[in-house]
């Protein structure tokens, strides 16, 4: 490539490195604070980038995005409060590990998996962008529909001990997700004429309520103080342990890349699909949900695998896959650049300089993440009687901060009580969350598909992508039924 020196000249500036470092640092910290999302941080950072060079500006925003994606896992592991929605899956095994005094191990697993996934995602962005973008364009409503069907089958694997209870929780999640205005006709559903419910139940308050609040209630209702030593001195992650997870990390990264390349699906789904696949293929299936590092690794690989790949539809098609990439698209436009095929023709040097920066950002994430673990894991040493009131304060603040709305605080507390009831009755909260996230996507795409085909159902079977996901869905269901049957047989034999 003859322009390589130009690329390096554009990329190798102190500003770019500072932007990446500052971005990742801000991202990790903001991502770790519940209610402060990477989306907010990127939006707030945007005006600061107006006066920067285009490459520097975009690297700063991408840095925040990547940092935020990882940062969310820190509080998920330490205090069962996912700092970002995508980290909800990480806490399934991360928090039990912290309770067993293995916080450091869990945090390191999350970090290394995130960085590996990030790297794989970057490489996919650089080498397969054109190909993956083509798939993304062929992903219409019927294909989404089948992807969501497949994703729904993972409810079975995150249901904990009882599939029936898991399905009940998922059903409840779907019911809660229907609150708001109907997407096609605009009729009000379960809003009780409240303005606060018209835009559906807010996600972040639900998330914080469901996972963090029950811990607080448990603490104050239990007579015996749970004395948990999650010391910083706790054993770190060994190479052997990480090697054992590597397969799941790579699998999760690939799942993340595919999900990330398709606009509008999201990191949370990727994390859960990756987790469920890891569990299905693991020899230590039974340990998942009880503190299995492979679970942490898979979840984090899934959500970080999305980070680089969401830039695929953005850069190659000019289509933002989520809110953050929509803001990054804005940053491009402010600097007079229009992402899409034209960008590759007219500003190839800039695109490659960006790629260099994005690769560097994964390495920076490793360094910043390691530093963050050192300080954040101190949280685990704070006595719970001091920590939990602070957690509660952050929960209240986080629920409020998303929409600057006090109604959301009440909402969070209601879901907190629901989460507590779930805990006490042995119902897993994860299926509820999946139902809540995927329910509306299922409905929207089903209805969109039928609107487009004017009611003709044959559109559901229109092409190879649809068939791939139909096959996966059926296989996943058959597999789940077989496993259920086998476990029943074992139980009756015992």
């Amino acid at each position, binding site marked *: 490539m003859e322009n390589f020196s130009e690329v390096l000249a554009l990329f190798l500036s102190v500003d770019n490195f500072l932007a990446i470092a500052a971005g990742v640092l801000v991202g990790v910290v903001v991502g770790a604070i519940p209610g402060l999302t990477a989306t*907010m941080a990127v939006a707030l950072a945007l005006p600061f980038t107006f006066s920067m060079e285009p490459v520097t500006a975009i690297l700063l925003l991408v840095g925040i995005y990547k940092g935020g994606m990882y940062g969310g896992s820190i509080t998920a592991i330490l205090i069962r409060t996912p700092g970002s929605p995508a980290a909800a899956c990480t806490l399934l095994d991360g928090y039990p590990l912290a309770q067993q005094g293995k916080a450091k191990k869990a945090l390191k697993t999350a970090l290394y998996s995130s960085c590996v996934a990030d790297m794989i995602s970057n490489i996919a962005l650089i080498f397969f962008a054109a190909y993956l973008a083509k798939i993304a364009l062929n992903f219409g409503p019927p294909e989404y529909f089948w992807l969501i069907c497949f994703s729904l089958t993972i409810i079975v694997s995150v249901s904990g001990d009882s599939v029936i209870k898991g399905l009940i929780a998922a059903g409840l999640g779907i019911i809660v997700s229907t609150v708001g205005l109907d997407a096609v006709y605009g009729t*009000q559903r379960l809003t009780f004429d409240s*303005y606060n419910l*018209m835009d559906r139940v807010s996600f972040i308050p639900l998330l914080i309520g469901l996972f963090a609040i029950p811990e607080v209630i448990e603490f104050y209702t239990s007579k015996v103080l749970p004395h948990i030593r999650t010391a910083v001195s706790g054993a770190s992650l060994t190479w052997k342990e990480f090697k054992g997870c590597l397969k799941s990390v790579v699998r999760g990264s690939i799942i993340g890349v595919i999900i990330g390349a398709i606009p509008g699906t999201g990191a949370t789904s990727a994390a859960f699909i990756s987790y469920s696949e890891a569990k299905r293929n693991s020899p230590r299936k039974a340990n998942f949900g009880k503190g299995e590092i492979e679970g942490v690794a898979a979840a984090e690989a899934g959500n970080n695998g999305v980070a680089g790949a969401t830039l695929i539809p953005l850069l190659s098609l*000019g289509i933002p896959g989520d809110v953050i990439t929509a803001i990054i698209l804005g940053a491009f436009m402010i600097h007079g650049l229009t992402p899409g095929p034209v960008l590759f023709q007219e500003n190839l040097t800039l695109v490659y300089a960006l790629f260099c920066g994005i690769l560097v950002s994964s390495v920076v994430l490793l360094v910043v993440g390691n530093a963050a673990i050192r300080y954040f894991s101190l949280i685990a040493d704070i006595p719970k009687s001091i920590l939990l009131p602070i957690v509660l304060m952050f929960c209240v603040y986080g629920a409020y901060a998303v929409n600057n709305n006090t109604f959301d605080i009440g909402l969070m507390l209601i879901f907190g009580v629901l989460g507590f009831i779930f805990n006490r009755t042995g119902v897993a909260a994860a299926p509820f969350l999946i139902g809540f996230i995927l329910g509306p996507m299922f409905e929207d795409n089903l209805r*969109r598909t039928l609107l487009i085909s004017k009611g003709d159902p044959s559109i559901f079977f229109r092409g190879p992508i649809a068939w791939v996901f139909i096959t996966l869905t059926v296989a996943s269901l058959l597999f789940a039924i077989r496993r259920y049957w086998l476990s029943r047989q074992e139980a009756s034999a015992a």
Partner: protein
Amino acid sequence: MRQLIRNAAKTAALGVAAVLTLSSPQVLAEGWPEDNIRLVVPYSAGGTTDLLSRKVADLLQKELDTVIVENRPGAGSTVATAQLARGGRGSDHTLVMASPGHTIGAAIYPNLRYNPIEDFRFIRNVINIPNVMVVPGNSPYNTVAEFVEAAKQEELSFSSPGIGSSIHMSGELFKNLTGAKMVHVPFRGSGEALPALLSGDVDVAFENMPTVYPHIQSGKLKALAVTTATPSEFLPGVPTIQEAGAEYGLGDYETSAWFGLIAHKSFPEEGVTKLQEALDKIMAGEDFNNFLPQFGAEAGKVVGDDFRNFVAEELTKWAEVAEKANLKR
């Protein structure tokens, strides 16, 4: 490496300090503003309204006092607007960036607790973004006329990033005026709507200019017409819907995504004047005019009472469209 991070943190802190110094008031005249100005964005951080508001705030605080941008999303912008209408403490320094949501929201949400015209002071229309009627690149329709003729024979679909958006309502208005058979396929955000259009799953959309502009250039989408009354300088040779569809009843068709500052009805007169002066100055400036083309946008035209009248007309138009499309809830 730790040193590097430390340096980065130091530089970042210095940077923030520098930005704050730079952005502190340069003109501190007597009287209004006596406090920081609050600019409320009635949508989430990151959308077009947010992006434009932050730019305007950035420019405004160079002229007046510090401007703090605050996002208060909810119920298609009506949550923030209702709060502004209530007034109270601080309302003499609070502005809302109003957009089509102000009138469409009023047209489709029930029991609105404010009057979208009477309860506000209309300061100035700042930016307008045209919508473009686009079809997939391989679509058989090359003109508005061809499209309408086809849509009279069989039902065609139009996409939007959500119910009640200016993009959706532009389509409903088109459908009303022409009597064409069109079914609305709502998505969640343009990011989801665009692929369906590019791949030809839906037949047409009335998308915001900046969203579709690159795809028109690359030939993946065809621009049939712009929704504004005058052609856009960004799409030379593309007619307006008014011109291209006059014979199908589209002679009065006009929509755009407009953005403008509104305040509580009791907003001090001095504040209105100062804001209008500041905006005039900003809008004549190089910075603002370099910013506009990135969004395929034009500078807003109407000020004060003219802006108010414009919004009132919009309201009537959308109320009628919402009624016919059965959207009044």
